[in-house]
């Protein structure tokens, strides 16, 4: 990993963090009955890490980026643990989406994967990430219905905004 890729990763994180905290955090999506939900795009930071980056490093970056998001959402640890989960299974999801693999210095971006494979990549990731995130947020099986409904609602808006953001970040690739 050279300096320019480090710089690009940092830049991506800053842009993602700004969109998450400054924009999406302020948006109140139309609730479905009692179920309020949020849009999360910062997992894209984990998704866009280089293909061949060592898993340990991915997990550490996920952990700390999650902690930074947690610091803003005042949910210390909840995003961090979800991000670590996503990071740990990211290779499996990538293998599912890209059976042939790719150059390990490249990033699995929207431009490189094309739209549908990238959408599948993001969709699988959020299907893993969101239920786990809401499970950690509620922390009890008693709220199973809330966890499922909120995960689905959040899934729609999260994937939508993540795709838009991925389009914007194409220029940094």
């Amino acid at each position, binding site marked *: 990993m050279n300096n320019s890729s480090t710089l690009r990763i940092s830049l991506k994180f800053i842009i993602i963090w700004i969109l998450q905290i400054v924009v999406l955090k302020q948006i109140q999506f139309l609730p479905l009955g009692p179920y309020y939900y949020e849009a999360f795009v910062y997992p894209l930071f984990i998704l866009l890490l280089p293909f061949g980056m*060592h*898993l*340990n*490093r991915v*997990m*550490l970056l996920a*952990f700390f980026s*999650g*902690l930074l998001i*947690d610091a803003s959402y005042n*949910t*210390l*640890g*909840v995003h*961090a*643990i979800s991000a*670590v*989960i996503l990071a*740990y299974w990211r290779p499996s999801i990538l293998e599912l989406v890209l059976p042939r693999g790719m150059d390990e210095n490249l990033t699995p971006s929207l431009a490189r994967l094309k739209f549908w494979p990238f959408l599948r990549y993001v969709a699988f990731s959020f299907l893993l990430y969101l239920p786990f995130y809401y499970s*950690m*947020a509620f*922390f*009890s099986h008693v709220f199973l219905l809330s966890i499922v409904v909120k995960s689905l609602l959040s899934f729609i808006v999260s994937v939508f905004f993540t795709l838009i953001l991925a389009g914007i970040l194409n220029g940094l690739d």
Partner: protein
Amino acid sequence: MNTFLQLLNRVNPRILFLALLVVSLFLIVQNNEAQGRIFWNSAGRVTGFFGSGANAIRSYFNLRRENEKLQHEISVLRGQLAKDQYNDQVSTDTLQRVIDSTRIQIYKYIEATVVNNSVDKPKNYLTLNRGSRHGVKLNMGVITTDGVLGVVRYVSEYYCVVMSILHADSRVSAQIRGEDKGFYGSLVWNGKDPRFMQLVDIPKHNKISSKDDVVETTGFSTYYPPGVAIGKVFYHSILPGSSNHLIQVKLYTNMNNVRYAQIVVNEHADEINQLEARAKDEQ
């Protein structure tokens, strides 16, 4: 930085993954109120479940010791019950009953409760809960409200042992009540039936008229005051070749369930005994 990254690459991803999960969970539970409450509640339930199981097992093994402890506790508590405590109070009005200066009190009474008794042996004794501390002395008589019990033979600080009238060596000076009667003899026990005693030594020339004549104490001894009814004549006979009546006396007192007694304090006992001892010496 590079050495850190090289070191990082050498760590097993699975271990790092689990470590990060643990750290994150710790952060969640520590810093989020709702999750923390749920966590500690569940943790409390889990440890409570295992804890109560372990506790049940431990208490099973402790049963014996617990039992012993409870037994000890019971005996301590039992000792605090009023009925198990020694009532040290002697009502003093029975001891100081001077009516006027010309009448001198001879007999005083000490209330006592029977704490041990027997009627089934040839030599029976009773134990009373009064002793030297309350003025009980050797050779004091003991009566009840409807008869006599015996004579004090042993005295300790709190207790005295009374030789029952149901004793092979017991002799009570007794007489038939009545103006024209007053024949006296000795009331003894033949060791058979605790309901009956035998009035002996009454010469046969005295007429025992009625079957229901009352037998009372004579007051000749220093043990009992005169006129304490003991029982009534049940039947009388004269054994062939004997010069005396044999009178069966049915006791008023059921010696088997006697509970309360009065110990007779004869204020003049010492004087009488000394005088009689002097008379005996001269014989």
